């Protein structure tokens, strides 16, 4: 066996080891698929500092990580709610009534302070709250030290869109508990959706779900 022939096994071993070294990167690249659902949170501050917070979390990761966090009221992916907070309200009964009811507008309140609308359409619950009073107070507080004429108040508007299946999953844990993991699973199955939009004088908040792994 000549030198070249003898060197071949060593060379092969080196190459094999080099391939072994590169293998994890290759397998990692295949791991995440395009079908993964991500929950995105974006908070944009309207003030001069212009703070922007963008959070992107894969729902699958959140489903796995949440049960591993045991702190305060969060245990095994469930949040314990104080019974005092919902003492006089049977949340389950209300949601059950909403679920079985026909599509339509259930609550519509219009006042000088707030406008509230609660409706259901195609298995999705919509809650829209417009707070006029908060905006007026914010503007008055801002203009008071300057002694200037009051500027135009920006209404604070909250829009929440929740699939009923997610609500069911959230309440599936039992009394006084919210099952966050089950809710995430239900959200993931629901597909791309806009969940929360908040617009007020101070911030714009948007929470939504899609299959992109970065905020647009």
């Amino acid at each position, binding site marked *: 066996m000549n*030198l070249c022939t003898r*060197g071949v096994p*060593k060379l092969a071993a*080196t190459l094999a080891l080099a391939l072994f070294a590169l293998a*994890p990167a290759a397998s*990692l690249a295949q791991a995440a698929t395009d079908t993964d659902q991500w929950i995105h949170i974006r908070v944009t501050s309207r003030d001069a500092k212009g703070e922007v917070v963008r959070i992107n979390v894969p729902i*699958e990761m959140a489903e*796995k990580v949440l049960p591993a966090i045991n702190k305060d009221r969060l245990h095994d992916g469930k949040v314990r709610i104080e019974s005092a907070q919902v003492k006089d309200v049977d949340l389950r009964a209300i949601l059950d009534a909403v679920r079985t009811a026909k599509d339509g507008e259930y609550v519509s309140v219009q006042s000088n302070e707030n406008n509230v609308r609660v409706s259901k359409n195609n298995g999705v619950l919509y809650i829209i709250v417009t707070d006029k009073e908060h905006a007026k107070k914010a503007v008055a507080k801002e203009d008071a030290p300057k002694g200037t004429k009051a500027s135009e108040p920006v209404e604070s508007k909250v829009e929440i869109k929740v699939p009923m299946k997610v609500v069911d999953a959230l309440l599936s844990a039992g009394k006084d508990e919210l099952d966050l993991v089950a809710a995430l699973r239900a959200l993931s199955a629901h597909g791309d959706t806009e969940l929360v939009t908040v617009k007020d004088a101070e911030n714009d908040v948007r929470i939504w779900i899609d299959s992109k792994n970065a905020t647009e």
Partner: protein
Amino acid sequence: MLVLAKIALGLGATLAMTTAYVFHEGVIRVDVDEHRPGGSHVHFWVPATTVSAGMRLASLVPQRPLEQAAEQMKPHLPMFRVMAKELEKYPNAEFLDVTDEEQHVHIATVNGKLRIDVVGDDQTMHLQVPVETLMDIADRLEDASRSARAREWHARHTKHSVVFASE
């Protein structure tokens, strides 16, 4: 001449294999710059394998620093482990981006490495750790926590036996 060539080939192959092994987990990079007169500038990189190997060695030190670290990390260890495992599935993703007047914080994975970048007016920090190394660290800490518990149980058990025997 032939013998020298054989030795050179052997050494070369060994060196290549060692290098491949040492770098197979990638490199940990740390860059810290303080933007003030006399501020510190820390720039270093180490093969991630040496961190894993170092943690194994640390478990043999009599003072058991790893067990102490594991005890401190104990409440967060399950979350850290799950997070590290899950991060492996997302080799290229952006998780957090916070921008304000003074700072920019960015947490993402790039080619299987966790990158944390903090760029501020007074300080800049860049950290890059292979996700695989995070898993290794979680494993080592869990092992250390387990052995600390076992030692504690053994010590308590032995103490009870001594008390029982003396009675």
